[in-house]
Each structure stands twice: as C-alpha cells, then as structure tokens.
C-alpha cells in the first residue's frame, strides 16, 4: 500500500526542504472594527505609522512617544493562517487497476502535501470523498498545524478504502457547507467523471475564494492501456455497466488517445479557471512526482 510510504521517515526527510506553494497569505480578522481597518496580530514588527484617531491604542509605541513626543503606531506582520485541504477522491475507480494503486498514490500525495504544509504551520487536513448509495460520504481529519502531529493523519489515511461513485460536485458542496475560511484546496482524483461536473465543482471552489490545485492521478496500466488482448467482458467499477469487447493491438492506442483527451480537457479547465494542474501518473513515480513534478508546477516549492 503506497499510502504507508508517506509516513516513512526516509521519505519525509526528502520533503523537509519543500514548502507549499501558496500565493496569498491571509490574516485573521480580529473582530469587527468600526473603521474597518484591519490590524495584523502577528509578533513580527512590520512598520511604524502616524497615529490616527480610531487606531487601536494598544499598538501605540509608548517608547517612541516618550523619546520623540509623537504618537507612533507600531504595526505587525500578521501570522499566515491558511487552511489547506487535501481532497482525495476515494471512489471505486481509484481502486482500479489494482496493481496501479491509484488510491494509494493519491493518499500518499495528499499526506505528503499535508506534511509540506505543516512546514509553515499552516492548518492542514486530509479529506476523502465518494458517493455511497446515493449519499455523499465526506470524511476529513481535523486540522493539524505542527509537524509533531503529522502522524495523527496516519490512521485516517490507512483506513480509506476505494468504493462508490465519484461525485466531485457533491463533495465540494459538503466542503463549502462547512463555511471554513477560504484556503487552499488540493483536489486529487483520476477525474474519470463527467467533465461538466468537474468543471462546475472546480468553479465553485474558486468562487469561494479557495486557491485550488488539481493533482490528476492515473495508473500506469490505465494510462498506457496495457491490457491483455482477447474477448473480455469489461465492467465499470462504479456504475457496474458491462460491455463485451475485444481487446487487441488496436485497442491500446485508442485507450491512450482517450486518456490524452481527458488530460487535455482537464488542463483546459484548470487553465481557464487559474487552477494549478499537475499530473501524477504511475504509482512508482511517487518520489519523482513529489520532488520534481509538483515543484515544477508550483504546487510546492
């Protein structure tokens, strides 16, 4: 199981030098102010400015007033408080092909991103979603900020099993209903679903001012269409639909073309909505994905 790799010390050491590529730092609102000005609540001094009526007297630099006889106000750099959610698709399609261990790859990437996010004390959680019997099952860990609590993710990661249908729109609805502050949402899925559903879900995340990143996971056998040739009954893992088909030499290119079309469409959607898109094809490529692919795409730095 590849997800266990995300908790191996040797692997984690390679992630120590990476930080999450988050573009915006947000402050925490410290209550409603009459003037509507926002004061950072960090401890790192940022600047000085002339006092203006209405400023919070708690930030007056009394030493400067005593020395200069001017009311100076010290401002602080606000602490970054970004909530990072690694949203992992746990539908049945993620479990197939079994030897590709797509779900393991997705969970390992999600856990790795959480570990990386903890480098900046960002609040990080991992969620898994799938549709079971018409109801969305959205499970997520509590937010953790410090790397000392990273191992708290392990029980959850190890317990996620593939099953059910992919309904990204329903999962996003669940996420938005929690009314959390806008943060970073990393969607990790094979995106073998309706394109419009994917686009609609991603659009709603962006509209909620989340910084959205997409990691497109796909198995090596799946992406290279390396199936045995012959007469087969092919069953969709999620819908159960069965087709009898003949797999032969001409099948693999067709399947690869279809994968390329899906990738191209996902890339187009992400580009359109300013979403970072990264591919993670092949479970054997986990380390290279984390060390090279994701940094190259700006998901981590």
């Amino acid at each position, binding site marked *: 199981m590849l997800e266990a790799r995300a908790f191996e010390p040797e692997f984690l050491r390679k992630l120590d030098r990476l930080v999450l590529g988050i573009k915006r730092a947000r402050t925490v609102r410290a209550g409603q102010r009459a003037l509507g000005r926002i004061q950072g609540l960090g401890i790192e001094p940022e600047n000085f400015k002339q006092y203006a009526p209405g400023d919070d007297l708690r930030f007056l630099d009394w030493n400067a007033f005593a020395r200069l006889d001017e009311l100076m106000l010290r401002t602080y750099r606000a602490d970054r408080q970004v909530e990072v959610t690694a949203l992992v698709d746990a539908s*049945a*399609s*993620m*479990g*197939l*092909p079994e030897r590709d261990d*797509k779900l393991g790859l997705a969970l390992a990437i999600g856990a790795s991103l959480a570990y990386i996010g903890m480098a900046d004390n960002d609040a990080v959680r991992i969620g898994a979603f799938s549709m079971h019997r018409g109801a969305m099952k959205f499970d997520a860990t509590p937010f953790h900020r410090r790397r000392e609590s990273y191992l708290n993710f392990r029980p959850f990661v190890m317990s996620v099993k593939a099953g059910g249908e992919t309904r990204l729109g329903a999962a996003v609805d669940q996420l938005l209903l929690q009314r959390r502050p806008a943060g970073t949402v990393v969607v990790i899925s*094979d995106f*073998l*679903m309706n394109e419009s559903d994917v686009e609609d879900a991603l659009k709603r995340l962006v509209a909620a001012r989340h910084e959205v990143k997409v990691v497109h996971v796909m*198995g090596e056998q*799946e992406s290279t*269409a390396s*199936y045995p*040739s*012959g*007469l*087969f*009954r*092919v*069953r*969709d*893992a*999620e*819908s159960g*639909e*069965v*087709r*009898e*088909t*003949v*797999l*032969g030499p*001409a*099948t693999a290119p*067709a*399947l690869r*073309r*279809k*994968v390329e079309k*899906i990738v191209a469409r996902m890339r187009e959607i992400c580009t359109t909505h300013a979403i970072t898109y990264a591919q993670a094809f092949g479970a054997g490529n986990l380390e290279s994905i984390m060390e090279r692919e994701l940094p190259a795409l700006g998901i981590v730095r």
Partner: protein
Amino acid sequence: MGLLNPQNFIYGLSLALLVLIYLRSRSRPTIEVSSLMLFDEAPAPVASVRHVRIDPLFWLEMATLTALTLAIAGLYVMRPPSPGHGRSHALVFDLGAGMSAREGSGTRLDQARREAMEIINQAPVGDEFSVIAYALEAQVRHPQTANLASLRKALGDLVPMAVPARTAALRAALIRARIASEIDLFADRPPATAILADAASAARVNFHLVGSGDSNLAIVSLDPGIPGATRGRAVIRNFSARSHPCELAIDLGNNEEFHQTLMLAPREQVVVPFGPIRTGGVLHARILTPDAIDADNNRYAYAPSDRPAQVLVLSPDAAVRDDIARVLLAVNANFQIETADPAKYLAQANASGPNAKPLELAVMHDCYVPAAGAASTLLIYPPHLVKNLPYAAAIGISVQGTLASADIRSYGMGEAPGIESLTLGATRIVAIPEWMDLIATATGPGHSSIPLAAIGRAAGGPVGVLAFDVRDHLLLAPDHLDALVLTVDLIKQLTAPRDILIVPTGADVSVPATGTARVTQPDASARTVTADKWGHVRIRPLQAGRYTVESGGETTQVFANYYDAAESDLGAKSQAEANAPAQKAAAASNAQSAREAQPLVFILIALALLALTIESALLIGHAGRWGMRHV
C-alpha cells in the same frame, strides 16, 4: 417412428447440462476497469450484453447431444423391408385342448393355421419362418427355413392335444422363438401381459387370438360306485353362457348302463347319479350332444369287481390290522379280509394247504412275508431286513434307515387332490427300483427328498410301498386325511386289473412288456416301442381315449381321461372382449407386419460426428483468430 428403448431418453438430461455449461461458459473473462469512459473510442466491435445469443457452437453441441440421445433411445422408423433382406419369423402355436374346439367348418387350430399361411404367403421373398408348438412343453416343429413347402407341411402336421396348455410351456416356446425378429403367437386365449412383454424385449410379438365360441360340455369326474351296492356319480359341467342340452350315456363294457338327456343351465355343474352298476369293469361315460371339445366328452373309470376277493393284512400291531381292514372295506366292500400277526401267519399258511384261495392283495405293515403269494403287494413301513435276509428280487426295494418324522413334500398322482405339507410319524428311508413310479416324496432331518409312496409292476405282480408308519390310528385321524387318501389311492391301483390302466392325459405310463410293444393310439395310429431293461414301455398319452399296448401276447389297455377346467372353459369370447385393446394392438401390429422397424442409430451417429467436425473447424478458426486462451 418410435423408440426401442424409451427409458434411455433419460440421457436427454445431458441437454439440460449443456445449457447449464453454456450459460456458465458465457461468463467470459471479466475485467473490472475504473471507467468504461476509457473504452469509448476502442475500435474493436463492442457487443452489448444479451441474454440469448445465437452461438453456432452451442447449437452444434445441442445437435450432437440430441442425435446421440435419440440413438441411445433407439429411434426407429417403420419402412418396408428392402428387397433381398430376409427377416426371420417364428410361428408359435398353442396346441392345448382348447385349440381343438370346433367352430364353423374347422377347429381353432385350423383357423390359426390359415392365418399363419396368410402371413407366410404375404411375406417378402427371402423371409424365413420357424414353427414352434407348445402345450405341456414347448417343441420346435420346424426350424428356420425359407422353404414354404416344408413350412406348409409342418403347419399341416400340427394336431391339438388333449392336455392343457401350460404357462411354462408358453414361456419356453417364446424363449426358443427369440432368435426371430418377429414372433406370431396363435392361441385361443390371451397370455399374461408379462409373458408377452418379456418376449417383446427381444423380438416383435404379434398375438393372434383365435376362436370365439363358448359352447362346451365336459365330464368333470366319474365315480362308478360299488357294483351292486352303491350308486355311481358323474359330474357334468356346462361352460357355456347359455343353457345347453346334454345327452349322457354310460356304458359298462358293451352294455349301456345309463342314458339320459339333461338340460344344463348356463355354467352349471350337475351331479348325475346312476346305478348301482351290476358288475365291475371299465365304465365309459360319454356326452353324445355335439359340443366344441371332444376330448372332455369321454371319461373312463374302473369299477371293482363284485366278486369276493381275498386280502391278507399282516401287521405286528393289532390296531393297525384293524385300521387297514376298515380302509380296505371302504375301498371295496367285497373284500374278504384276513388279518394276522406275521409271526403266526407262517404256521397258518403252512396249514392252509393247496385248497387255500388265491390272495388278491397282501398288505404288510412293518413286516415282509415272501410266502404270502398274493397277486399284488402293499408294503407299509417296510422293515429293514426280514430275518437277516434282504427283500426278494421281485420286490426290489431296500430300506436304508428310519426317520423319527417326515413331511410330505409332493404328491404326483394326477387324479388325487394335491397334498400340502403334512407331518407324519416314523418313516422308513426306502430306496426304490427304477421301474417303480414315485408317487409322493417327503423331507426329513438330513434328507431333502425321500420316497414316501411308489408303485410299480414287478414280474410277480404290482407292488406298492408306503414308507410311513400307520400306527396310532394314523389312517383314521382326521388331521392326517392325506395319508388316508394316499393309502386308498395305492390300494385302488394295486387291486385294479393288470391289463387296465386309467390315467390322466399327459401322465407318464409304464406298462410291462417283453422286447417290443405295439402301441395303438385312440386315433387308430400305431407305433412300435422298445421295452427298457426293466421290461417296461413308457408312453405318455396326449389324446383322450383308449390306448392298447400289445407285447408278448398280452394286451394292456390304457384309458386316458382329459379334463381341465381352465382349458375346457371356452369363454374366449368374453375374454376377447375383455382384452379388446390387446386385440386391437395385435391387429395394428398385424397391419404393420409388412413393414419393419429400421433403427436410425447409424444415421444419428453420423449426424453427431458431422456436427462435432463442424464445431472443431469453428474452434480451430477461433483459436487462430483470438488465441487458445479464448477457445
């Protein structure tokens, strides 16, 4: 078209098995994929799932199994025989007394003969026929032959017998006919279905029921009574469903003793008393009214002579002497009986001198006195040895031991009632010579069969043996009536004249003879028989009436009586009506007799092989296209 072995149709279950296997095999290797979306652009033909799919391999296998099942079940078609292809027929005839019943211008056998001739005439050239007859036993009258002339002669030689047709003989006849492909059975009454079914398992059986009339009278029994003392009785039976007149005449020698015409109600049996007759002799009862069967219209009986006859009874037991004397008087009241203790009799005999009257019968119980000099001897419970001397050569018996008790096992006398198992007292183990006829046997501890009663004609006169002891009033005990019947029967036979025998038809008769004997049958035909080493000729009367055996200047008359209630009952019409389906089946089979069943085994197997060949070709092509894994 039909099936020779319809029970083998159970192999048709293989078709259901094939369907199951097919449905199971339709579950091709299944690959579960993350999404069928990936296969949208697969160029290979994609077949949607269907519940019923026309698979040529399946239909070929179905055809193969169907053909094999039909072949095992014995599918056949009826078709005319191909020219030059000879079939074998067996013509089986019932020669029982019923087949001699007159109907119209001929007998039932004549009718059967005509039907058989019709079959022979209509048969294709090359067909072979055999003629088998049965009554008391089965006999092949003519082996398989295509020579129609000899067949016609063999059919013409068939003569009904005055005996009942036995079921065992019919079975034996059908067993002998099994070598033929078709059996034609001619009888005046339907046989048991099981018998025909057994025969039909090996050959096609066509049953021909002949005869329909039921007008028959029969003399059931004739009791002459005691001359000058008691009346005789004749029992007449009407087997017809209508009233029937019966003119009955009873003759004693050449004199008519009784003549009367009776009217018998439907299926009535009447006892006609007559006499008492004046003297003894052979009594002949005749039914003069014409009816179907002649054989049962005559019956003979022997009336003992009314002259006094001397009988000697010897026994060491006085009670036994008394019992035997009573029995003798019951058999013939004219007997003058002298009883004596064997130990004292010798002195009396010596004292009797030359004026003594000749003894008709000497009955010796638990003793043997050779000097008795009787015309016939009855030994009851013969002793081991007589004064350390063996029995005289004329007697020819030897006693080998004594059993404390024995059970009567069988009783072979034709006219006596059958004896069921009866436990007797002490019984001698007697070895009888071959010229004696065994009448009854018994079983005892360590012995499965010992002679109990026997009779034969020795040079010195008839000799009878009863091996059981009659002490303790055995002959008068109501619980041992069968022992009394056996004793009376032997006494009657021993006191009958030497030159007259009255037997039932079908019985084996042994007549003393010297050298050769000329046997004249009731139909006046004669034949010469050579006597065996014991000086006897054996005949088996199959016709009712008088046989004469002439040998060495002496003539013995054998009167054969026939009566069998089942055979004489010609209610064939009602039976035929009861068995109308059988008749229809026979008629139907007769209509098809010109056609023969041709099994389609070879054609069906060829079809199965063809289907398998085509399937193999398809599979090879399939393997070449998709690989062996998907064949």
